[in-house]
Structure formats: structure tokens, C-alpha cells
């Protein structure tokens, strides 16, 4: 799974730390997600989508082989 978290963060002018703070996770989590090293749980994905006020599919995408 891939995502455009970085882009969304830029649009809302948030640092990784800001975003982590807003949804109550560690900065490592945001960093790992942006590097596609970590697939968030559904709960976390929904929280992020809610914060950016977009459907989950607008932020997280399946990759070709998934």
C-alpha cells in the first residue's frame, strides 16, 4: 500500500511532528508510513482521512500487485 501523506501534509502545512501530535501517534509512525515501510491499521488510516477531511481512498492506495 502506498499513500500521499507527504503531499497532504504539505497542503495543510504540517510537519511530521505536527501530524503525529494531531492524531496521537509517534513521529516514527508518520515517518515509516511516508516511506511505505508501515501499513497503518484501519483505525489510524480513518483518523488521518478524517483529519484531512477526505475519503481514505484519496490518501491511501493499493499498489499494482496487491
Amino acid at each position, binding site marked *: 500500500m502506498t499513500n500521499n501523506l507527504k503531499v497532504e501534509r504539505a497542503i495543510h502545512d504540517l*510537519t*511530521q*511532528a505536527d501530524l*503525529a501530535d494531531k492524531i*496521537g*501517534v*509517534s*513521529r*516514527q*509512525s508518520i*515517518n*515509516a*508510513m511516508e516511506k511505505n*515501510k*508501515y501499513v*497503518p*491499521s484501519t483505525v*489510524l488510516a480513518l483518523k488521518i482521512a478524517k483529519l484531512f477531511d477526505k475519503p481514505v481512498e484519496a490518501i491511501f492506495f493499493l499498489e499494482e500487485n496487491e
Partner: protein
Amino acid sequence: MNTNYLLSHKYKILGWILFSIGLISGIFMVFSGFESTLLNTKVLSIFNNGILNNEDVTFFKIIENSIVDEITALFIIIGGLIVGFSKEKIEDEFIYKLRTDSLVWAIIFNYLVLIFTIIFIYDMTFLNIMIFNMFTPLVFFVFRFNFLKHKSQSHDE
């Protein structure tokens, strides 16, 4: 993350202190050959098969023993458990995944090393390895977990 077996974050420092003292004392003991008369104390031996000194089998006997090695072992184990299983400042699902991944890695790595030593190391040397093996799963786990944590913390905003 709902985890009911993790200690509160405030215990982490205590864990590191115990773990460090234990490791330092342990390394010191390795080099001094495990023999010590320091802190000789009366202790309760529940069972002793007497194999080491050709003595009789005894049950529930009060004996004299240096408790330096016991304290060292307990410090490493209790300290390591506290460090590995106390919450991070921000405990979330990613940290939880790092912790479980590290545990899996530590177990596999530990037993691969042990397999190697079983095949290639014999006699008393192997027994010495077994002493290390009491602690290596925990030590590998703690170091792997902290290594991954710091690696994923690095750079870019």
C-alpha cells in the same frame, strides 16, 4: 493501542539502570571467572543433585553462597523485561509492531546462534555458552527494539 501487559513509561529508567548494572557486573564476572566470595549469604537451596562436588542429593537445605551472580542475573532479566515491556513516551501501533518484530527477530537469531554452537562447541565451553544463552534472547530483543526505534526516528520533515 490497547495493551494490558505493558508497564507505564516511568519504569523505563529504572529498567535501564537495572539492566546496565546487571550487564556491567555480568561482563566483569565473565572476565573474573565467575568465582567470588563477595556477599556470602545463607540461602535456601530447594534441591541440589550434588553432581558438581560429588555430594549427596539434598532438599531444602540452608547453604552459604555468594549471591553476586544471582543478583547480576536478576538485574539483567528484570531490567531487560522492564526496558522491553514498558511503554514508550508515545506508545502506538507502529511501536507495538517494532516491539513484536524485534521479539521474533531475537528468538530466531538467538536459536540460529545456539544451533551453531550446539554443532561446533563442546564440553565445558558449551556450558559457558549456555550461561550466556540465559540472557541473549532478552539482550538481543532490547537492542534490536531500540535500534529499530532510533533508526525510524532519523531525519527528514
